[in-house]
């Protein structure tokens, strides 16, 4: 069977192809036009009469298809990739356990969540629409667990480059550090050997006990306590701080489907900026009333008032010294003056 190269593989080679090779390309494209007899023949003869110089090296690896440790074309592998990128990009994530929710219940919950998030007032500094990018997503627990391990134990920047063959047969240094690579697989395997004790401080070892049963994650693109509070009010209401929307304001929240769905949804934990929080911790983050801006304002105020106190304190010592000296001087002056005046009056 002739070696077939996909157009995308050849076209995406930019850096790998030499100048001499690129000049040869029009020739290769012209070849099929000569014996064109029918549409079907054209496809079959496209590469077949290629000369030796046009042969792709046997160990050539297209840059768009790097070698992988797991089969790259399976759904699970692609899920793993999407989960690792989700974990790397999402600063705030809530983890829910869902116990046999039906599709209509999911739809009702998503509807209520969207409505609640849309009601959150946008603060001036946020140009982007956060609410539309907050999603609740059912995950495959096992693949998510693997993705957590990869994100925790695999550092793509530390992978050594390997030599890869270009189309012309030359060698170029290439780094295969994607999440399905051999390097990622080995790093995870070395870190999670059966006899190796996991350090308690790692995020993975803290999150690992949560990775049981059917899970769903609620992902936020930024740490926004207002949006988190709105989501908590809908998904896991706890009356004093996070009351559920009122029946008058949101009647559809109280219909049978939404309520039965919410009863089966269980908030088990969260991950905020790489730290693991339990429910109380998540509620604490959601309870930051004025958001991050407010926290920053508080901090600035605190630092400013501290500075003010410091300057007055430092000033105070000098000031009191000056006052003491000044009073002492006036006393001395008076003492000097006093007798003189007395002498004057006496004489």
């Amino acid at each position, binding site marked *: 069977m002739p070696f077939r190269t996909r157009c995308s593989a050849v076209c995406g080679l930019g850096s790998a192809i030499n100048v001499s090779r690129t000049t040869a390309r029009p020739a290769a494209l012209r070849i099929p036009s000569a014996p064109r007899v029918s549409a079907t023949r054209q496809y079959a003869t496209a590469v077949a009469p290629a000369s030796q110089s046009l042969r792709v090296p046997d160990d050539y690896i297209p840059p768009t298809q790097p070698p992988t440790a797991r089969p790259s074309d399976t759904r699970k592998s692609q899920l793993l990739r999407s989960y690792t990128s989700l974990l790397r990009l999402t600063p705030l994530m809530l983890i829910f356990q869902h116990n046999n929710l039906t599709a209509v219940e999911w739809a009702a919950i998503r509807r209520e969540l969207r409505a609640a998030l849309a009601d959150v007032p946008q603060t001036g500094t946020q140009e982007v629409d956060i609410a539309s990018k907050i999603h609740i997503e059912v995950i495959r627990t096992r693949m998510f667990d693997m993705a957590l391990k990869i994100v925790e134990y695999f550092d793509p920047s530390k992978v050594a480059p390997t030599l890869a063959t270009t189309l012309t047969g030359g060698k170029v240094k290439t780094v295969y550090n994607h999440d399905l690579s051999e390097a990622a697989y080995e790093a995870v395997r070395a870190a999670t050997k059966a006899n190796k004790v996991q350090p308690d401080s790692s995020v993975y070892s803290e999150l690992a*006990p949560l990775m049981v049963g059917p899970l769903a994650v609620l992902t936020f693109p930024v740490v926004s306590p207002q949006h988190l509070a709105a989501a908590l009010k809908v998904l896991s209401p706890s009356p004093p701080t996070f009351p559920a929307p009122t029946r008058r304001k949101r009647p559809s929240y109280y219909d049978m489907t939404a309520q039965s769905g919410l009863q089966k949804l*269980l908030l088990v934990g969260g991950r905020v900026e790489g730290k693991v929080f339990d429910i109380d911790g998540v509620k604490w983050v959601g309870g930051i009333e004025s958001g991050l801006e407010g926290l920053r304002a508080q901090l600035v105020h605190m630092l400013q008032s501290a500075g003010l106190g410091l300057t007055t304190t430092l000033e105070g010592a000098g000031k009191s010294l000056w006052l003491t000296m000044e009073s002492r001087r006036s006393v001395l002056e008076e003492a000097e003056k006093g007798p003189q005046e007395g002498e004057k009056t006496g004489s």
Partner: protein
Amino acid sequence: MLTQFIIEVSTRFNPFSASAKTARLFLTRLPPSARASGMSITTQLLPRNSTEPSALKIKFKDGLEMKLDCETMNIKSVVEVVDRHSRQLQKQADLE
């Protein structure tokens, strides 16, 4: 798992402890319409640093109350124990 003879399930666990697995998986074994068909399910989540053991209490229609030890039993053995009693109730119901 036979669930039509269970009238009450109450669980209590700390999701960050490994022993919560059994209780959490038991909740997933209940059918979607469990609450609608009259089963009362209560779940209490403990804070992360609590060392209280996970608890799973099941009440049957005939009044039997089961307290299952989640620390030592896995979900398979819990289902086995629950099903054993449910099958007895099923037999009685069939004879009547």
